[in-house]
């Protein structure tokens, strides 16, 4: 398939900027688990007579994002109304941006490839419908929760520069890394703070014309994004190869069934009757303010990653460079005297999977204890998590538990002999050439003496068995 079809993907990503309040009123941006309609007021309920007021923090987050994505910021921008009726849209229109977005013409580097960004604009989110029964048209009862109505959203639209499911996923992940690094959004996909909608089409390899595209919605993880695109590419190529055609439509992704399904075809697409929002005067963006935001931008992930690559292998950089907190932890701990590679490995193997971060000073201290051979890796792990839980220092914990590592050969020789005596079958197996039998011997040894230096003990067992 890949040699006959070229995949073309453009991404629309909706991101909830980090703000305290909603886009056009003073209501708090609540949590997913807050009771329905607990963050609403007359403005976001769309009551008659109410008017929107622009949230400056949302504009700032959008400008930050746009600048980090190398976008141009025009002098004038404005909001427009996108008109359609739906029960989750209290005003009967969404305030969005149409022909004069907050920014345009940027780009993002993903694994050395440049993905062009068409625009980044601001809009408001809709509410949420909960149906008792089936979908809206069949449900007996439907409930409207407007906690999310009016929550700010940035829409980041790329050009159709992505050529595979891998690239699309990597693009979305890179975007998340960037948004977190600059503090524009927490970009948590599971909380709906980052929603990716790929526009997918395929064309004959070598063709320069775009095929008919479909847009995918309801994707709530990077894994789902990847799978949905693979599925859709497969579906489209099968359709074309069997003499059929692709219909321009919006399709939903079902995680349960692992397939896409038709939601709305273009013939039934709404005419949104965009027109300038008369309740909000056009925004004239202050150049000095934009320069200030630009100056205050932290180091971008791509720059930091390049610096980390000077010290560490690519595998470790992929993990550490993708997360601002991990990278901060790494760099600060190293600055406080921890060795780079062991610290990076520790972060990759212990910190990243658990999500539990110790302060850099204490991590550096722990790394030094481990490096000096004073404690075992298991002891270090125990001390690490206890330190995270209790806030005490690793040194205190190690001293209190009497953790130490036995590296003394004469002491360990007695132990190794006892292990061989106790496990005659494993010893015989090893001697007969089944090297994996060593694992059973080591396990028994660590059970008898958790504080044994595994490297020295292993060497002793090898020596005794030879």
């Amino acid at each position, binding site marked *: 398939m890949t040699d006959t079809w070229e995949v073309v993907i453009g991404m629309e990503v909706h991101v909830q900027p980090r703000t305290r309040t909603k886009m056009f009123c003073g209501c708090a941006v609540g949590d997913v688990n807050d009771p329905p309609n607990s963050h609403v007021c007359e403005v976001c309920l769309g009551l008659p007579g109410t008017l929107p*007021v622009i949230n400056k923090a949302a504009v700032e987050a959008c400008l930050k994002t746009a600048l980090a994505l190398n976008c141009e910021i025009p002098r004038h921008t404005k909001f427009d109304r996108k008109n359609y009726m739906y029960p989750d849209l209290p005003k009967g229109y969404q305030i969005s941006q149409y022909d004069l977005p907050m920014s345009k013409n940027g780009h993002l580097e993903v694994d050395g490839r440049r993905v062009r960004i068409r625009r980044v604009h601001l809009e408001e989110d809709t509410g949420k419908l909960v149906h008792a029964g089936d979908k809206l048209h069949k449900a007996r009862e439907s409930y409207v929760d407007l906690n999310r109505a009016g929550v700010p959203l940035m829409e980041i639209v790329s050009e159709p520069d992505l050529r595979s499911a891998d690239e699309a996923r990597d693009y979305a992940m890179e975007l998340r890394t960037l948004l977190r690094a600059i503090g524009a959004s927490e970009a948590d996909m599971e909380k709906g703070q980052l929603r990716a909608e790929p526009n997918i089409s395929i064309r004959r390899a070598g063709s320069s014309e775009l095929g008919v595209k479909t847009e995918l919605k309801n994707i709530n993880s990077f894994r789902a994004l990847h799978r949905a695109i693979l599925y859709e590419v497969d579906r489209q190529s099968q359709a074309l190869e069997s003499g059929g055609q692709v219909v321009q439509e919006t399709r939903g992704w079902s995680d349960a069934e692992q397939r896409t399904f038709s939601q709305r075809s273009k013939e039934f697409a709404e005419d949104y009757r965009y*027109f300038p929002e008369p309740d909000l005067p056009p925004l004239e963006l202050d150049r000095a303010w934009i320069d200030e935001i630009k100056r205050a931008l932290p180091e971008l992930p791509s720059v930091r990653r390049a610096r980390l690559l000077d010290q560490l292998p690519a595998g470790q950089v992929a993990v550490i460079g993708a997360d601002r907190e991990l990278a901060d932890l790494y760099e600060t701990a190293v600055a406080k005297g921890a060795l780079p590679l062991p610290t990076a490995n520790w972060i990759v193997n212990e910190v990243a999977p658990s999500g539990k971060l110790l302060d850099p000073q204490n991590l550096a201290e722990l790394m030094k204890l481990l490096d000096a051979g004073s404690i075992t890796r298991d002891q270090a792990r125990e001390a690490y998590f206890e330190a995270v839980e209790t806030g005490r220092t690793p040194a205190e914990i190690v001293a209190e538990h009497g953790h130490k590592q036995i590296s003394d050969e004469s002491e360990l020789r007695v132990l190794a002999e006892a292990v061989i005596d106790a496990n005659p079958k494993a010893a015989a197996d090893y001697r007969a050439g089944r090297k994996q039998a060593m694992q059973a011997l080591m396990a028994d040894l660590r059970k008898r003496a958790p504080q044994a230096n595994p490297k020295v003990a292993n060497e002793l067992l090898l020596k005794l068995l030879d």
Partner: protein
Amino acid sequence: MNDLTDLTRLTIREAARHLRLGTFSAAELVTAHVERIERVDHKVKAFLRFTPEVWEKQAEEADRRLRQGDAPPLAGIPLAVKDVLCVRGVETTAGSKILRGFKPPYTGTAVDRLFDEGAVMIGVTNCDEFAMGSSTENSGYFPTHNPWDLTRVPGGSSGGSAAAVASGEAIVALGTDTGGSIRQPAALCGVVGMKPTYGRVSRYGLIAFASSLDQIGPFTRSVDDAALTLSLMAGRDPLDSTSADRAGLDVLNNYSGDVKGMRLGVPREYFEVKGIEPGVKAAIEAALFVLQRAGAELVDVSLPHTDYGLAAYYIIAPAECSSNLARFDGVRYGLSEVDAPNITEQYLRTRRKGFGTEVRRRVMLGTYALSTGYYDAYYLKAQKVRTLIKRDFDEAFKKCDAIVSATSPTVAFPIGSKTQDPLSMYLCDVLTLGGNLAGLPGISVPCGTSDGLPVGLQVLGPQWGENVMFRVARAYEELSGVRAEVADLD
């Protein structure tokens, strides 16, 4: 002042003086108005509903402040509020059945500011549904009658507010003006009605008809009262991004009646509009003569795009209304046809039942004008015309300080005479809507009668130029001796 036995013919200034002198109390003033309403409102039908729970508390508070000696300027003054302005806990329906039973949980800024200044709300006045109309016949409830001739309309859309002031049911009333909805009924009812510069008064709490044109303004019995009321509700509101704090409003000064040396622009197109009545023209020409004799210079000006103004207005206003009225879907408040088989049908049934003919017509016109393929030809073109009309006024104001004309081409017309012909109704706004398209301040003051019915003189000022507009209107009021009077109705 007038006969003190009748407390329902006073201006704000007169009433305020007597309230401070202790001639009568706020409670007595309110009671006099309530009794007047009981006598005459079944004839005029200016009010949709009354608010005793509000006026009792407010009158009591006004009397307390008056006794204390720190009463705000409007303390104890009976106020009527058009049914498009939200008042907390008071049913507010925009003259529409679709909002029946809707009680806003908040009070809009303009009304709230007048409450803070001591005004006492008497009730909610009738209007054309969602302020769409020029006769108050499009009310979802009943028509209001002109106090000077009960067989005729009071004008609209703020007909209830104009009629309330003209019939002695309130000393001041609030209206809204999108294409002439304050000035035209003021003219037809013989009272003062004033539309501020767009942005002068916050629209927060005003149930929107056309957001880029709507402004709130007062109906009063004198120019001074209009200036005072405006000054108390004007100014930047953080809840309305289109509102502004601007100079040009030192209304508490006493304007002298002096117009010597002022240049008054007379736009020839406004005197040649289709259907202008000779009697109206004659009354206006007489008024201009009064001003000229007092030393004002009459200058010929031209507003060449006047003919296109009406067309542009009837694209832009419906376009905005089609979007503003989308929220009335029967899901959250007001009328709801819940027995529909599905949501689309629920929308259709609710809106079909809740909206009147004129509202439906404008929603359809606006929806069409914004549709893909028509947007450029209609909405965009109309916005270009709007720019040209603004430019016309800019040019005219280079040659003059204020523009004077009739407010309405006709006097009050018989109820039912235009309801079958929407276009003839739309023509009622031909002299006023330019002010809305250009965002200018305008006032209508009584200037005599034609066939025994009131005629209004319109004075338009430049943007943020309320002062000059008030000065001319006040001068005319003083020089002519023509006052807004209260109809007898007995």
